[in-house]
């Protein structure tokens, strides 16, 4: 009864609110009104007001990005989106150089990333170490120059029936700056409280208007990031005097973005965008102990040179009779060259070189797309087709990097690991929105895909929305989805030596994998349900509450290191000279559910100053509900299962505050990251929830010159160390007094407070 009273009161209150018809406003006032925040994502039928989207959508604008003081898209999304996680890992080979990100605690390859609505390629890197995102490849978000971004749209709903593979946890759509921005240059400089991790960045945005409201915009960025060092004591008997590097890697990067739209005389638009990024990043492996040959030990440095680019060409226009068409082609390529220096191949003795070429990984994706859409009075319809080509290449390193025990720190890829595999797929899709009685809409998305490797799949999505009042909105959706096994998961292999054991990662169709029961990889299948509502008064006060549920069948995982349990398995391992083996398999079923509660409030103060509050609570629970193979069970893969269920915070809170008064802007944000845990040697260690604080104060010191100071995690909060795990009790690599004092799962890193200043000039 009480709930019904509250609901009734809410509706009554909503109805009593004045309609913002602006009838009495002057023209000048109308031109200063902040218009609706809209997003293109979630529907093929044009941009939608965020207060009326059929599934939960969030938008981070270029203003918010700038006022956050952040220079990495991973950090921006971690800052603004509750439930977005992007740890800063260390001593994890390739994963140190390309950050993993997750949404709602799900796998990093279950998030689709788009640029201007078109699919962006993933990185060639497969995360094969014990990090968050183990076994997955994700898009390298740090390849995108922040100053080129107009807004980032985040769809928090399964959308594979609309966008195809990967859109299980959600979709991130990055919209590049178009018309209407001034040229600008930004200079950043920052340093950690401990005096390391210095970062310098310059970025420039240049734009030119073209005929018929067309534009040509370019962004350039150069960044230098120095490493942080947070290692503990090396308690090994023959510890090297050179300490293991545990912290953010040393990295230098350069980025370029082009975005252009060229309307032609005949009402046809041509458009193009290009992203280009080069990053040279260095991180260490564990330092090697002293021995007779190397009396001072040594610290192998793993160097990743990452070259990433994508180019889009497209055109759109009207066919007549209200039919709009759009045709495009996106080509993307990511290549990582690995090398190791300050290392040795023990088995080559004094003849060993100390720097190695360890091989390379390349991923290429080309997507051709045709969309057609039309609006009728009560029906919006969109349909289209897509053809995609993918290629994955692994090239071997030099002989010294892989022969025998290989280069210490990271053994090179061997000739037998080399691969060059292609895949194609085509898709046909149909989206339709039926508008009933103005208030009620039903959206239906249907998508058929046929992959050359694993076959076809058809997925459907239904969304129902009901606008009760202008202020009150309900939405409900259900869908099926899928994620195709990546070419990397199907074709990656590598052999390395660790602690004297020779371990191999084998393709699923390799004899070793088959001996352990591996089968050809199949697509992950998913089912989604979400229900939510939005209540708002004149956009100044908004409450959004959504419940979500996602079940994934046959999630692909990299098995644990398996040893032979029978003679035939041992014989196969012996044949290939390895003592442990692992491979990708459709391992488990998972279930994810939770809620998002968002409250935004904008308060207009005197002197036209404004105070914006945004509160966002996310709860996401991930469970493994079934095991589909003996290669991964709750017993033999406890660490991996716990990684899925408890490795990331189940809850997070962001409280974002922004005060704006004429030339002054102050952003103060509190972030609460819930507890999480990591398993070491079959035992789980829990890490406490923590609250971090970010502050940015900017002031317009001259017409087009803005100066800012600020900090992230300004009170220098660091995660607690391993509780009950000492480096001497388990192993020297982990522990409260060991080389790694903190968990690599920490959602806010462990490098501590970062302070910066920023100068922005418009011209």
């Amino acid at each position, binding site marked *: *009864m009480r709930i*019904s*009273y509250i*609901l*009734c009161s809410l*509706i*009554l209150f909503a*109805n009593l609110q004045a*309609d*913002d*018809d*602006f*009838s009495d*406003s*002057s*023209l*000048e006032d*109308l*031109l*200063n*009104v*902040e*218009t*609706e*925040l*809209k997003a293109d994502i979630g529907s093929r039928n044009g941009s939608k*007001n965020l207060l*009326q989207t059929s599934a939960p959508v969030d938008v981070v*604008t*270029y*203003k918010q990005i700038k006022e956050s003081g952040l220079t990495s898209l991973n950090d921006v999304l971690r800052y603004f989106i509750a439930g977005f996680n992007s740890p800063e890992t260390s001593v994890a080979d390739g994963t140190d150089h390309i950050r993993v990100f997750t949404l709602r605690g799900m796998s990093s390859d279950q998030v689709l990333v788009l640029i201007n609505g078109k699919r962006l390629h993933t990185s060639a890197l497969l995360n094969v170490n014990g990090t968050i995102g183990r076994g997955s490849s994700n898009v390298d978000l740090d390849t995108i120059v922040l100053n080129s971004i*107009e807004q980032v749209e985040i769809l928090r709903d399964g959308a594979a029936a609309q966008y195809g593979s990967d859109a299980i946890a959600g979709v991130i759509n990055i919209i590049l700056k178009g*018309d*209407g*921005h001034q040229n600008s240059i930004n200079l950043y400089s920052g340093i950690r409280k401990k005096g390391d991790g210095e970062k310098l960045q310059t970025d420039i945005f240049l734009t030119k208007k073209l*005929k*018929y*409201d*067309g534009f040509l915009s370019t962004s350039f960025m150069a960044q230098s990031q120095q490493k942080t060092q947070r290692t503990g004591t090396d308690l090994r008997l023959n510890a090297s005097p050179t300490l293991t590097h545990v912290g953010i890697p040393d990295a230098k990067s350069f980025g370029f973005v082009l975005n252009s739209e060229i*309307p032609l005389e005949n*009402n046809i638009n041509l458009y193009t965008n290009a992203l280009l990024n080069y990053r040279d990043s260095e991180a260490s492996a564990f330092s090697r102990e002293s021995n007779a040959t190397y009396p001072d030990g040594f610290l192998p440095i793993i160097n990743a040179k990452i070259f990433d680019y994508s180019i889009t060409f497209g055109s759109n226009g*009207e066919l*007549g009779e*209200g039919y709009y068409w759009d045709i495009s082609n996106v080509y993307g390529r990511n290549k990582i060259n690995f090398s190791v220096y300050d290392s040795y191949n023990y088995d080559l003795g004094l003849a060993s070189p100390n720097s190695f070429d360890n091989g390379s990984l390349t991923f290429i994706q080309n997507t051709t797309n045709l969309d057609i859409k039309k609006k009728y009075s009560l029906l919006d319809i969109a349909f289209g087709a897509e053809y995609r080509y993918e290629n994955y290449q692994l090239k071997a390193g030099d002989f010294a990097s892989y022969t025998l025990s290989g280069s210490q720190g990271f053994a090179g890829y061997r000739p037998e690991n080399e691969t060059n595999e292609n895949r194609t797929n085509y898709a046909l899709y149909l989206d339709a929105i039926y508008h009933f009685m*103005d*208030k009620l809409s039903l959206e239906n998305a249907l998508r058929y895909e046929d992959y050359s490797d694993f076959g076809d799949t058809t997925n459907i999505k239904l969304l129902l929305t009901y*606008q*009760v*009042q*202008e202020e009150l909105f309900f939405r409900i959706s259900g869908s099926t989805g899928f994620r195709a096994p990546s070419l990397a998961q199907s074709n990656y292999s590598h052999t390395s030596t660790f602690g004297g054991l020779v371990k191999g990662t084998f393709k699923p169709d390799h004899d070793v994998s088959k001996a352990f029961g591996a089968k050809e990889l199949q697509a992950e299948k998913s089912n989604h349900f979400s229900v939510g509502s939005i209540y708002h008064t004149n*956009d100044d006060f908004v409450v959004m509450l959504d419940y979500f549920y996602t079940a994934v069948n046959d999630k692909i995982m990299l098995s644990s290191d398996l040893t032979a349990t029978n003679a035939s398995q041992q014989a196969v391992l012996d044949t290939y000279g390895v003592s442990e083996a692992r491979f990708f398999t459709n391992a488990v079923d998972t279930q994810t559910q939770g809620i998002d509660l968002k409250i935004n409030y904008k308060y207009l103060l005197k002197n036209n100053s404004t105070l914006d509050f945004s509160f966002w609570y996310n709860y996401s629970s991930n469970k493994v509900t079934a095991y589909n193979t003996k290669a991964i069970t709750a017993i033999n893969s406890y660490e991996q299962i716990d990684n899925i269920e408890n490795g990331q915070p189940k809850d997070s809170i962001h409280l974002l505050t922004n005060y704006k008064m004429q030339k002054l802007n102050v952003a103060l944000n509190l972030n609460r990251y819930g507890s999480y845990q990591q398993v070491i040697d079959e035992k789980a260690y829990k890490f406490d929830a923590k609250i971090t604080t970010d502050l940015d104060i900017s002031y317009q010191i001259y017409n087009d010159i803005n100066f800012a100071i600020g900090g992230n995690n300004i009170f220098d909060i660091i995660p607690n160390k391993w509780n009950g795990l000492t480096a001497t009790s388990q192993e020297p690599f982990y522990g409260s007094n060991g080389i790694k004092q903190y968990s690599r799962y920490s959602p806010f890193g462990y490098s501590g407070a970062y302070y910066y200043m920023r100068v922005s000039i418009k011209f």
Partner: protein
Amino acid sequence: MYKMILLILLFICVNPLNAYDKNDKLEVLIMAKASKYIKWEEDSSENFIITILNNPYGDLFEKLLSNKKINNQPIKIKYISDIDELTRTNILYIPISDKKKLSSILEKIKNKNILTVSNMKGFVERGGIMQIYFISQRVKLKINLQESINNYLKISSSLLRISDVSNRGKK
């Protein structure tokens, strides 16, 4: 409990829907407010007429502009689906859906003392007079001064000051 639910449902059903797009509202109002800074040739008609070609906004024009005046003339809204249906008007609103026909529409009303308004991209450069567009959560105005002169419309400097003015060349 059931009575309460019934009450809520009843309330929902009898309450008219006001769920218009805020951007659409702004566009309509800005068109009307900006018109107050524009002078048409001497006109003895009773009403200020706004003609909407292929109306994209339902009853939004009526809702926001009925019982309002521009230059002391009561506003009258007319709807047409073909430019050949056009009769005397002060303003002609041309929606995005008529982009392909824009040049022929503008040709038909050339020099007829009509303010053309649209939110379509490139409208002003294609010969329209007033373009209303949205960038970074702000609404902007763009005016083709030469075309306004060609159509015998006098635009006040106050409006030009807050607009992006193109084609300032003299006839």
